């Protein structure tokens, strides 16, 4: 089957190749090629931006085991609607993705039902319990792209050290959810003025900072890359900045909610604002944005974490942590980083959503090089729109961004040379 595209007149931003210019792109049989094929479908991208398909290395698609919250199918549709062509799933499913059998199950399910590329992470420890090492070699062979106990954090430093050392032989990066459990304890929101006012147990930034510091030391000691997930605290950013200056192989990601919302959002006890790590203060937001601008934080991700309405419709301390993210992710990043704060250029934002995550995890994506897989996102960075959670293809509705007016969104998502979604006509299937 031969399918070809001619994407005409767009501003092509391909940070992997240092390209930012108006040009045409050509696709044949799912690959980028250098010339137009006869009968190519014309896509008019004039006035739009054409980028490598966006990559989100932090999503929870809940399968297997929690398909009432999200499925790989519904989650992948949310991804496509948000302009993402590739996602990386966290392993805190039921069963936990700590065995080749579960990885194979997820891969097969993704093959059959997902409209975007789905990669798996494997757990660092069995059952993400933080005690025994998961079968890391077998997970590597099964095709996981990284190891993480996300949702949990390995508390035992000895276990973590050995896991990092062991993973190194397979070249598998470690990603860590940074949370020291004796300090975060039963905390449900940032420890600070608002937890004080609301009488809710606090989860101090210190609990993140301590594990970020631990990971910096472990990465330095082992020479193996560790990636700190969803950084929420100003001091964590400063620790990372200093370590990266010294050349320590440590990276970090930031999420939309951690640069746009503060803990004040919880003042009416709205569980949609309950997320882990928690929303913090304006000072934390400012430092995270500074870290994104100066290259301390090099990857942007959503931590898309669906929960069913009945699970969130409870007392705040009983509600699960997490919020939807994929559909609003690009818009919130552009709204804050590009439009409001002018902290980054558009190519910088795109790099943090394409080539940077691809390089960290060794994915053959995130570039518009000739011969590359034709994952392409067409976006309008200035398009003003209002997010309505009821339009979401996700099975869940737990978002704090409902009704937000945002600037910038994807208008067309192309995976393997095929359009899976566009703003005008919706999904192709």
């Amino acid at each position, binding site marked *: 089957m031969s399918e070809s595209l001619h994407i005409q007149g767009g501003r092509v931003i391909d940070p992997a190749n240092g390209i930012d210019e108006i040009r045409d792109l050509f696709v044949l049989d799912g690959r980028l090629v250098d010339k137009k094929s006869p009968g190519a479908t014309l896509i008019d991208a004039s006035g739009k931006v054409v980028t490598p398909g966006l990559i989100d290395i932090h999503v929870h698609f809940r399968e297997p085991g929690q398909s009432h919250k999200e499925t790989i199918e519904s989650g992948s549709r949310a991804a496509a609607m948000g302009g993402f062509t590739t996602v990386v799933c966290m392993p805190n499913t039921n069963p936990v993705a700590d065995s080749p059998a579960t990885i194979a199950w997820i891969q097969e399910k993704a093959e059959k039902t997902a409209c975007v590329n789905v990669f798996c992470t494997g757990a660092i420890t069995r059952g993400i319990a933080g005690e025994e090492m998961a079968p890391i070699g077998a997970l590597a062979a099964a095709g996981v792209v990284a190891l993480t106990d996300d949702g949990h954090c390995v508390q035992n430093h000895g276990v973590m050290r050995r896991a990092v050392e062991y993973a190194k032989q397979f070249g598998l990066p470690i990603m860590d959810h940074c949370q020291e459990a004796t300090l975060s*304890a*039963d905390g449900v929101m940032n*420890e*600070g*003025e608002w*937890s*004080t*006012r*609301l*009488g*809710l147990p606090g989860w101090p930034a210190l609990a993140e900072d301590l594990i970020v510091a631990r990971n910096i030391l472990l990465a330095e000691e082992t020479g193996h890359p560790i990636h700190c997930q969803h950084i929420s605290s100003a001091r964590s950013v400063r620790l990372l900045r200093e370590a990266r200056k010294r050349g320590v192989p440590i990276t970090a990601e930031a999420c939309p909610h951690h640069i746009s919302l503060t803990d004040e959002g919880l003042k*009416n*006890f709205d569980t949609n604002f309950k997320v882990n790590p928690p929303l913090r203060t304006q000072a934390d937001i400012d430092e995270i944005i500074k870290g994104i601008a100066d290259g301390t934080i090099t990857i942007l991700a959503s931590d898309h974490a669906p929960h069913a309405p*009945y699970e969130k*419709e*409870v*007392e*705040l*301390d*009983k509600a699960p942590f997490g919020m939807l993210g994929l559909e609003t992710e690009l818009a919130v990043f552009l709204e804050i980083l590009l439009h409001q704060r002018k902290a980054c250029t558009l190519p910088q934002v795109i790099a943090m959503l394409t080539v940077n995550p691809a390089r960290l995890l060794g994915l053959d994506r995130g570039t518009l090089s000739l011969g590359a897989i034709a994952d392409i996102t067409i976006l309008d960075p200035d398009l003003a729109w209002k997010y309505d959670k009821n339009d979401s293809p996700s099975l869940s509705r737990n978002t704090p961004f409902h009704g937000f007016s945002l600037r910038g969104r994807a208008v067309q998502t192309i995976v393997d040379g095929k359009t899976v979604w566009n703003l005008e006509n919706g999904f192709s299937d």
Partner: protein
Amino acid sequence: MKKIWNSKDLCALADHSEEELRVILDTATAFKGVGERNLKKVPALRGKTMVNLFVEPSTRTRISFELAAMRLSADVVNINASASSLEKGETLLDTARNLEALRVDLIVIRHKSAGSARFLADRLKASVINAGDGAHEHPTQGLLDAFTIREKLGTLEGVRVSIVGDILFSRVARSNIEILTKLGAKVTLVGPPTLVPKTFESLGVRVAHNIDEVIGESDVINLLRIQHERQKTEYFPGLGEYTARFGLTRKRAEQLKPECLIMHPGPMNRGVEIDSQVADGRSSVILDQVTNGLAVRMAVLYLCSGGAPFAPITAS
């Protein structure tokens, strides 16, 4: 008189203006007289039904609400968590919706989760009155404490109130801070840094870690109960050290101004946060607080049911 109280619920004193809080206190002043009569009943809430939904144990607050409702001629049902469907896994919202389906007019809730009263109030047509939600607020306690101070000292303006003890876990402290600062009192929180962190300064109060520095200047000293059941981890080395550093001992009581009011929301740990004789002494208004609590709760139930506020009774 213009109607100032427009809320069906009382979830937190933080939600209400100084003017609204004064309306409750003024209405409570009018109701206090009812309790002093031989016939302690008015027909204000006749035909209304109130449920005491106590998901966390309580004696005095529950009884106070129950009596307040009875004196207003409402019908009252008490629900204990241990005997309810909540024990069988029913959600709080479903329990409350069932009560509403029974056409209950007022739900008084005590629950260990902060925000639980607000959670129900936003979802029900019935009035929701917070009788204590976790460490968040205990609005009627804050009101009755303010009422008692105003009654005894004539005003709250400029009054120096020291609140001593386990502030971090205290809903009583938070409701006191809200109303006292709004009505012009100067509040100092006293306790070890683990239980009185500096973040409380953002609420417009002073934080002190040495009781002996503030004891002589206080017009009111409010001693909070050290809550054994809430101490999951070590916040201080032990009760002996706590009493030595922060207890209102007889020796410390001698440093108080003679007219200083001694308050305690109860239940007291005699000999821990307060010396037994001091608790029963001349300056103690601890039992006045209990009496006033009833009047305040009558006012709250009445106003949240749509009753017209009473005009302020000016002190002569």
